[in-house]
């Protein structure tokens, strides 16, 4: 029996397939013009990787901002619930989960059973999410995937005054004009998001272990900024962007009976 978790985020659809509690396949597709097409694409990619037939997938849970779009899902789970479940499965020692996606950042407090104790969400503002890095990468004229490595080369902390992504873009342009090295600007960008995320997480109280997931956890520069800002070590799983999809798949697997 195979169960599936589908996470329809603001930017990407992520799919995780589980067989007897173990991940057998993953699939990801960027949402372009058509969310449905991206859901089908990511699901088909995961199926192909698993080698299983569509009929073998008996239980499906959807999560993410666009979870209602998954018409073939049998159940659904909130982003916070899915993220918590995925993180607890990956690291049972996790007491704080920080999940930063393209348009939203979340901090979740977990107990030893993985149950959600409290959470805080940064929504409707690009300054505390991946969209911020993307906008700044554009201003810096570097690829968004280069931002992490670039910022790790920085040896100088440059303060960023602007909190809003729109204003920060002008600030980045001024920094470039002032001949500030790009690596220092990249670090300033990551420090700025980290500051915002950490102050949000502090509202619910930060307890060890801290696990960082979501697409932004792929960015090594951001992970470094979070570690420095928190002044404690942070655990990052191998596939951080799939944490919520994994949680959804675990949720699906736990459902009794077929769908």
């Amino acid at each position, binding site marked *: 029996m195979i169960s599936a978790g589908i996470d329809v985020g603001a930017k990407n659809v992520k799919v995780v397939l589980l067989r007897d509690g173990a991940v057998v396949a993953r699939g990801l597709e960027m949402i372009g*013009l058509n969310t449905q097409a991206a859901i089908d694409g990511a699901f088909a990619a995961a199926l192909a990787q698993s080698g299983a037939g569509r009929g073998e997938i008996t239980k499906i849970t959807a999560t993410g901002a666009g979870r209602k779009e998954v018409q073939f899902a049998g159940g659904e789970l909130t982003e916070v619930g899915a993220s918590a479940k995925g993180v607890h499965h990956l690291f049972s020692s996790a007491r704080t989960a920080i999940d930063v996606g393209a348009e939203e950042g979340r901090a979740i407090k977990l107990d030893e059973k993985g149950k959600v104790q409290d959470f805080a969400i940064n929504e*409707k*503002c*690009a300054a505390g999410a991946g969209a911020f890095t993307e906008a700044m990468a554009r201003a810096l004229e570097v690829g968004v995937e280069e931002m992490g490595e670039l910022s790790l080369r920085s040896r100088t902390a440059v303060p960023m005054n602007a909190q809003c*992504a*729109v*204003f920060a873009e002008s600030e980045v342009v001024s920094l470039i004009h002032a001949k500030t090295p790009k690596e220092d600007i990249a670090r300033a960008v990551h420090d700025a998001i980290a500051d915002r995320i950490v102050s949000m997480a502090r509202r619910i109280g930060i307890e060890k272990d801290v696990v960082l997931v979501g697409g932004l956890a792929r960015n090594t520069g951001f992970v470094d900024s979070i570690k420095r800002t928190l002044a404690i070590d942070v655990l990052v799983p191998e596939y951080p962007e799939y944490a919520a999809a994994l949680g959804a798949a675990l949720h699906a697997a736990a459902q009794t009976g077929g769908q």
Partner: protein
Amino acid sequence: MATEFWRWTEYRKTMPGVDWQGAEVLTAGVDVGSVSSQAVIMADGKLYAYSSMRTGSDSPKSAQNAMDWALEGTGLTRDKLNYTIGTGYGRVNVPFSDRAVTEIACHARGANFIYGPSVRTVLDMGGQDCKVIRCDEKGKVTTFLMNDKCAAGTGRGMEVFADLLQIPITEIGPRSLDIEEEPKPVSSTCVVFAKSEATGLLRSGWPKNKVIAAYCAAMAHRVVALLERVGVEKDFAITGGIAKNVGVTSRLARELGIKPLETEYDTQLAGAIGAALFGHVITKKAKAGIK
């Protein structure tokens, strides 16, 4: 080079029927904002000449340029001015000013001049921040609230949007009213997200004017929330660049249920006018002291 839809025309003007020659007190106010800079020359407390330009990366130079342009063709030179006050975000970077005064004080004083002494609440919608200022009949500030952490509801936010939709910024207001039916506001106030939301709406077939309407409505809604935190006492007036955007102001007035005052003056001059008026009072007091 691609068309810059955000770009607005810089301008200067000498007021007809006012002359500096024979004036007892000549003062200047220079408002160096984050997006635009204005210089205003006042003769005996009357608006004489002004200019409005884009602020460059060099604030002192922007202040200088605006000042030079305001003086251009008037025969008046800087050394004849009794007092010059700098204000705005770059107020400490006005090298030729006699002192600096905060833009909050200047906007309240300027609104009092532009709209008259009945103004009690001023909403200043500037390039990079949005402020609600309460003032008395003399234009003195009693309280204020500022939003300077978010581009939603600012001129810069509107510029980004104009660029996205490829519509000249001055046409945004009128075009947002040229619609069949008022749409629901876009759900994102964040300019970055509103951009993606607007792109989605355009793709789904919404006409541009309807998208602009939905954006102006969201902007107005956000500003109304800021106004309500301070409380609006009538009369109510709007200053700054967005005051010229009828798409935002008309929706704001509708949601608030209060009509803002109207004026013939350029609303972007409020800060610089306030600064020049402070200079006028200082000069008058100094002259009275000497006599």
